[in-house]
């Protein structure tokens, strides 16, 4: 029996287990997947929890429900990856050997990496929606928040779902308007990037949105520390922004176990070929999803397209053939813009988000880079698709590689 070991049963690991269990011959392959938590979290739903659009139960389900028959699920923390020896040690004392390894341990937030951030005020005047607990706590906090300066700060890129901070602010604009207190709230976006939108077409099409919604942007803000007493964030260039409520997207990093194994870059993400996901160091190690250091967005939709192209390529590779450069960095994201509207962006490694229409059999077309109600429903539909189609590794009626159909490039 050949052994395939998958580390992490989140979005990417679960999709890979499902897809590969269908593609690989069960009489020849033993597939094992390891995760530390019983619960699967629908992370895109964290965005909606603070505003009471989703509750806890919308975003959690047992991991086991998504595991195909024949795949062996082990619940334990992963303690060490010993790639030279082709084995992994678990906290429960087990050691698992493998012929092929897929690292899908995702990315997590590290508030302690920024002085003053993850300390006494964490969970009080400093909040986040980038974790389940954080999103739930922020919901409680907003219920009775009297208003003031709400500053959203992204500590450093890359982050999971790079558009989520903008969505949060646009939803906040809607939320406080509905509550009749928009005039009591200032919305400020302090980002290390040169602007809210950096790609030419998106800046042109979407730049007006934030002005219209009264969201102020503080660009090139590289946070050095938080002063929780004085309630201000301080940048390396001494710029300061004061807040009443700081909503932070802390530093995102890959799993520590990846770093300890010497398999990670400076943020514990695994360097891999951006078209095949093969480790640059080991010929039998791959990384999928947020764990991979590729210049694609860290998003569930990217993981889906990645796994779809990866499946057959992996099978070919195990049969002694060369990997094909099949993944093009395709990302497809609905962006919630508040007041029942949304946007859609579709892009890849080489093509920036473009305006036009996105054809989708049955439900589309959706407008690209332009607000519409259909896009809002697309965003809400994404939750259903995630639980029922994506996680189970089923195919969407969409091509995995980006298509130019409907897009205007001029």
């Amino acid at each position: 029996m050949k052994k395939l070991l998958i580390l992490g049963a989140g979005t990417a690991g679960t999709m890979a287990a499902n897809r590969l269990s269908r593609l690989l011959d069960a009489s020849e392959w033993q597939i094992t997947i390891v995760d530390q938590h019983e619960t699967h979290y629908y992370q895109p739903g964290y965005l909606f929890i603070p505003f009471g659009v989703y509750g806890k139960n919308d975003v959690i389900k047992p991991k086991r429900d998504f595991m195909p028959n024949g795949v062996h699920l082990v619940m334990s923390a992963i303690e060490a990856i010993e790639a030279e020896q082709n084995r992994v040690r678990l906290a429960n004392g087990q050691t698992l050997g493998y012929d092929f390894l897929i690292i899908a341990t995702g990315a997590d937030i590290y508030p302690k990496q920024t002085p003053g951030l993850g300390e006494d005020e964490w969970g009080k005047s400093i909040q986040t929606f980038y974790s389940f607990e954080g999103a739930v706590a922020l919901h409680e906090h907003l219920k009775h928040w009297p208003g003031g300066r709400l500053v959203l700060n992204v500590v450093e890129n890359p982050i999971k779902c790079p558009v989520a901070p903008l969505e949060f602010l646009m939803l906040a604009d809607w939320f406080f308007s509905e509550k009749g207190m928009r005039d009591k709230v200032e919305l400020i976006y302090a980002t290390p990037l040169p602007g809210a939108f950096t790609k030419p077409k998106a800046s042109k099409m979407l730049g007006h949105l934030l002005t219209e919604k009264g969201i102020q942007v503080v660009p090139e803000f590289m946070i050095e520390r938080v002063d929780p007493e004085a309630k201000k964030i301080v940048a390396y260039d001494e710029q300061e922004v004061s807040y009443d409520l700081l909503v932070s997207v802390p530093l995102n990093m890959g799993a520590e176990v990846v770093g300890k194994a010497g398999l990670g870059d400076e943020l514990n993400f695994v360097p891999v070929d951006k078209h095949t996901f093969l480790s640059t160091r080991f010929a039998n190690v791959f990384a999928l999803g947020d764990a991979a250091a590729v210049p694609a967005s860290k998003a569930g939709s990217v993981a889906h397209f990645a796994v779809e192209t990866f499946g057959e390529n992996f099978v070919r590779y195990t049969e002694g053939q060369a990997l094909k450069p099949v993944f093009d960095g395709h990302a497809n994201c609905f962006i919630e813009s508040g007041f029942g509207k949304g946007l859609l962006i579709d892009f890849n490694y080489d093509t920036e988000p473009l305006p036009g229409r996105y054809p989708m059999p049955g439900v589309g077309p959706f407008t690209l880079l332009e607000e519409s109600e259909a896009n809002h429903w697309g965003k809400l539909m994404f939750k259903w698709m995630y639980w029922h189609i994506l996680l189970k590794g089923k195919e969407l009626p969409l091509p995995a590689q980006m298509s130019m159909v409907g897009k205007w490039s001029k």
Partner: protein
Amino acid sequence: MSTRTIAGKTVQMNDEGFMTNPSEWTREIAAEVAKEEGLPDLNTSHWKVIEFCRSDATSSGKSPTLRRITTATGLSTKEMFALFPKGPAKKVAKISGLGKPEGCV
């Protein structure tokens, strides 16, 4: 897209002043662009960073992030802000003839 002549060489440059073809870059261009960015005297530390960015971009195809630069060069983020004030990653990318560090939209 337009072209510009710097340090006696005509190079391709976008509206924001970033060179779009890294192979057109020369050290003389770097010195000239640095002057325009308020850095008339590039010292050995500046060059160490520029050289790292050039070689890193050759293998990765993009400008390195500030964290990538500090990890590789051993300089602290504070030192990077002293060397290339106000947005070091962006400034050094410009001087090194590389693209602007970008987000997704």
